[in-house]
């Protein structure tokens, strides 16, 4: 239902977040980064989180992956609630791609080492064949296998980061501003790649972006965040028809398409 505060979905929900609070520091220094966020993402769906910097959208992703330690509420993956300590099997289901491809790859590890080590940690044996397959999946090919990050362009690095996230054959991919550090022409290539991968592997996406047009392209539903709270959850179709109810969403719309 459009415009309701809690987006409940029919069918099985792959990822369910309920009454999520995330905070940093304690006592007087406590900052409540996320307050009472709830949403559900169905299997194979792609869900967007938009809002300005500091609104808590990336923090939600970090809480889901276990990078933000202080949280309360319920996070359930495939119907199973996750605890504060994540089991190894959790990371076979959920993986994350970060914003800055320049910062998220080790400068002294070759592409082969990055992917090989990840595969090893996931417990695979046929590492050699899988590295080739992963590079193929993200459209890089074998000739990039022994390159170092500085020998790659921004778009190629982001492809490596996506390959690394895909190594454990996850079901959910958390995308934190995956194209905001890239040129528009490269952004188009990466967005196309993400569209293809979702279709091929049946992935579920949660994508954070400040760019409504990018979220609108990839996602079918989205949550709008402001000051640590989810203010509106709606279908992208409704957004296109300018049926946003919250004044902040209307503001965002005006800023992105000048309507």
């Amino acid at each position: 239902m459009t415009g309701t505060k809690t987006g409940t979905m029919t069918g099985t929900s792959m990822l369910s977040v309920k009454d999520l609070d995330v905070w940093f520091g304690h006592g007087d220094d406590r900052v409540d980064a996320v307050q009472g966020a709830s949403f559900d993402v169905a299997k194979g769906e792609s869900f967007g989180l938009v809002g300005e910097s500091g609104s808590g959208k990336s923090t939600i992703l970090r809480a889901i992956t276990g990078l933000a330690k202080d949280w309360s509420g319920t996070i359930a993956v495939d119907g199973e609630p996750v605890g504060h300590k994540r089991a190894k099997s959790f990371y076979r289901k959920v993986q994350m791609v970060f914003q800055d491809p320049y910062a998220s790859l080790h400068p002294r590890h070759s592409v082969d080492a990055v992917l090989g080590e990840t595969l090893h940690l996931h417990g695979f044996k046929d590492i050699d064949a899988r590295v080739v397959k992963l590079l193929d999946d993200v459209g890089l090919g074998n000739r990039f296998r022994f390159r170092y990050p500085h020998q790659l362009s921004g778009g190629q690095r982001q492809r490596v980061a996506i390959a690394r996230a895909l190594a454990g054959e996850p079901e959910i991919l958390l995308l934190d501003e995956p194209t905001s550090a890239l040129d528009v022409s490269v952004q188009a290539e990466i967005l196309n790649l993400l569209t293809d991968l979702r279709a091929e592997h049946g992935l579920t996406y949660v994508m954070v972006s400040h760019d409504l047009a990018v979220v609108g392209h990839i996602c079918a539903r989205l949550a709008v965040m402001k000051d640590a709270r989810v203010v509106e959850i709606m279908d992208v179709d409704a957004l296109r028809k300018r049926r946003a109810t919250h004044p902040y969403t209307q503001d965002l719309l005006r800023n992105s398409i000048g309507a």
Partner: protein
Amino acid sequence: MTLLDVENLWVQFPTRQGLFDAVRGVSFSLGKERLGIVGESGSGKSMTGRAILRLIRPPGIVKADHIDLEGQDLLKKSEKEMRSVRGQRISMVMQDPKFSLNPVMTVGDQLVEAYRLAHGSARKGATQAALEALDSVSIRNPERVMRAYPHEMSGGMGQRIMIAMMLIPNPQILIADEPTSALDVSVQRQVLSIMDRLVVDRGMGLIFISHDLNLVADFCDRVLIMYAGRVVEVCDADKLHQATHPYTRGLLNSLPRLDVPKERLEVLQRDPAWAEAPSVSGRVR
């Protein structure tokens, strides 16, 4: 009236493989207008801006037939003479205010220093002028901001402070290199409209360097589109969406649009001929 006239500008860097041409034969003129320079990373747009202020250090090489600021060739000036051009006649606003403001000086001290350097006035008048400068960039509560340090400011406020500071010496030209790329969309428009108002009110020339085609289309009068160090197309900003060069068209088509959903985005097919064709001149005669 032409404020700045650049002809056949080249910026080169020596590498192990020989000279690398970052900017290749760019020509343009700037009047009291808003000129946009757009292109992807590595297209030479920032280098063009920096070369005008002679900010490219050896081993980088800057060559041009001339870079005339109101008839005086900047390339013929000594380093000492350039100091009275930089900041005083041509100012520059960079991308990230975090790196442009001094982190260990209060905002007020920095503004007062800029004012006194530019006008050589007493401290008292300078403080008043600094408060007015903050007021002109729509900063509420300027007294409090004067006492604050840069890290206490948000990105949007930091960038407005930068703009206020750059405009203190009353320059004729402002070069803004991606001034809003580090800011949120909601703040972007606000900062731009403040900059726009100040530039128009004072009759300045603005060179607006950006990778964002839509922003440039909205905020500039004329646009140069750069690719591989060359200007591939010059057009009026309001006609940017009818641009004809395949590179410009490719960039425009690769943008996702909320109002026109499509399954797959168009991917830019680069033609080596674009990089080889000579620069289009952006000079108005």
